[in-house]
């Protein structure tokens, strides 16, 4: 068996007395699309924030492809080829779509500050490459017509697509999408699903954190379920759907009993 791309061991995060993430461990194989679901407050977003360096973890270690990421700051984790999107969709509203994407590539192309100011051939080559990749990604997410428009004019769903494209700019190994379809209309959800498939086909490994259980079940061949900060299930969607602990977490003990082991 090959070593996993992402290894998380005993991740723990406490807020005062409350343990938001409690000793969570899992591995993600290169090339896979893994879903991370759980009821409100189960610790999904906290895990994303800890893994990407936005919140300090209280315990545990994690590594990407053997490189230790524990305790690194967000920009270092991003440069180590693990990027993320945000639940509250973020974009640089005043920058053009193309600039939104080029910013995301400029810290990993090895061009220094003085080279950037000198505007030599090294910089021009790097910027041309970033622009070309940016246009490709905009075409992938269907925003190519707006490459020169400021991001502020985009709709909510379009901003989600832009954020996904930006997270791919620096050719990361692993991307964590935090609620990519929350609050998005069904047409746009299908589009985002296609984009995720296409990016995965290009070799990107993805972790998708979602509330929308149907979306995850359709998209991922492996799903991790959290409840109250603990991992309660981990396996293929068919198994997850009938897992009594998962049903209890989503419907409560009684609801799960009444429903039997039927589909949600």
């Amino acid at each position, binding site marked *: 068996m090959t070593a996993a791309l992402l290894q998380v061991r005993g991740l723990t995060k406490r807020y005062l007395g409350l343990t938001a993430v409690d000793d969570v461990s899992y591995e993600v194989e290169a090339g896979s699309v893994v879903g991370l679901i759980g009821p409100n407050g189960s610790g999904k977003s906290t895990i994303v924030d800890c893994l*990407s360096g*936005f919140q300090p973890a209280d315990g545990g270690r994690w590594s990407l492809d053997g490189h230790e990421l524990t305790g690194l*700051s*967000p*920009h270092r984790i*991003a*440069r180590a080829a693990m*990027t*993320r*999107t*945000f639940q509250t969709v*973020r*974009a*640089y*509203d*005043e*920058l053009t779509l193309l*600039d939104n994407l*080029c*910013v*995301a590539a*400029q*810290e*990993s192309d090895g061009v220094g*500050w003085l080279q*950037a*100011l000198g*505007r030599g051939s090294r*910089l021009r080559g790097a*910027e041309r490459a970033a622009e070309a990749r940016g246009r490709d990604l905009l075409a992938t997410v269907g925003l*190519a*017509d*707006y*490459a*020169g*428009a*400021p991001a*502020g*004019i985009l709709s909510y769903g379009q901003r989600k697509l832009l954020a996904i494209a*930006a*997270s791919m*700019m*620096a050719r990361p190994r692993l991307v964590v999408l935090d609620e990519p379809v929350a609050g998005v209309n069904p047409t746009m959800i299908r589009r985002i699903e296609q984009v995720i498939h296409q990016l995965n086909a290009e070799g990107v490994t993805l972790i998708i954190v979602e509330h929308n259980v149907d979306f995850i079940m359709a998209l991922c061949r492996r799903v991790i379920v959290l409840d109250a900060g603990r991992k309660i299930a981990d396996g293929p969607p068919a198994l997850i759907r009938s897992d009594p602990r998962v049903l209890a977490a989503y419907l409560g003990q009684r609801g799960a009993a009444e429903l039997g082991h039927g589909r949600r």
Partner: protein
Amino acid sequence: MRAGWLRALLVVLGVAALFAIPKVTGNEYVLALGVSFATFSVLSGGLNLVYGYTGLLSFAQVGFFGIGGYTAALLVTEQGWSLWAGAAAGGVLAALVGLVIGYSSLRLSRHAFAIVSLSFALLCVIVALEWVSLTRGAMGIPGLPIPTLSLPGGLRWRLGRPADFYYLLLGFAVVAHAVIYLVVTSRLGRAMRAIKLNEPLAQSQGVNPLSYKLLAIALSALLAGTVGGLFVFYLTIVDPSIFDFYYTETMLIMVIIGGPGSFWGVLGSSAVLAALPDLLRFTTDLRMVLYGAVLIAAMLLFPGGVGGWLQRRRRARWRRPGVTAP
């Protein structure tokens, strides 16, 4: 591409016209306005880099300005340094102080930086007043000598006439704005704007906000300190009033009216606002009232500054129904 050449031509013509002014009029009052514009435009340009592009509200610029002034005055009068070296040393010292302030406070938050920068500016006045053995206290250092600069080619330039200081400060302003323009139009400027617009997003894309913020602070401090070092020799005195809140207020108004994050907007508003209080001199009683009225009107008409207004117009183009990529 043609628009770029046209703009370059306009800039060259504009600079040439400014340099030609002393040939046309020897009027000392006009030259004094020019010196004031050159000096303030460097201060507001630096503040625009820190606040307009990087999003850090800073009250420290006046402190850097004064540190540069005191450093240059002391090094020239007491150590016999040339004005070039003294002003450069003032700029470097200001940049180092800026790095210390930035590094210590930005580890907390950008609000912490705003507060620390304000405290720093106030502290500068106290130090200038109380460290009498160095700064001579409230008396300041009057009677700064007329400097003589050595130029390339063995020429010596004695800054005896008002026009000389006009040339010197205008020349430095051109260099300072060229440096600022180079930075803000490069991808460093793009990263700074990204940090201002959405810092967590920038971090998630590998941008280290602290290093770009420190770059902006250090560069603006270097320019403010150097221009301070030159300006005090024009005044022929440096005293604690170099740290006056008036400078901070004027810089902030220039940046806010011009549009934070707009290079040309802030440069233009610096020119207008450097001259405005004097243009209104025709009515002594109402002068400051009118100045206030103009500022309020500008804020009502251009809530995002002139630069913000232009930006909105550009954006509206994309909102018109039926219009997609041009």
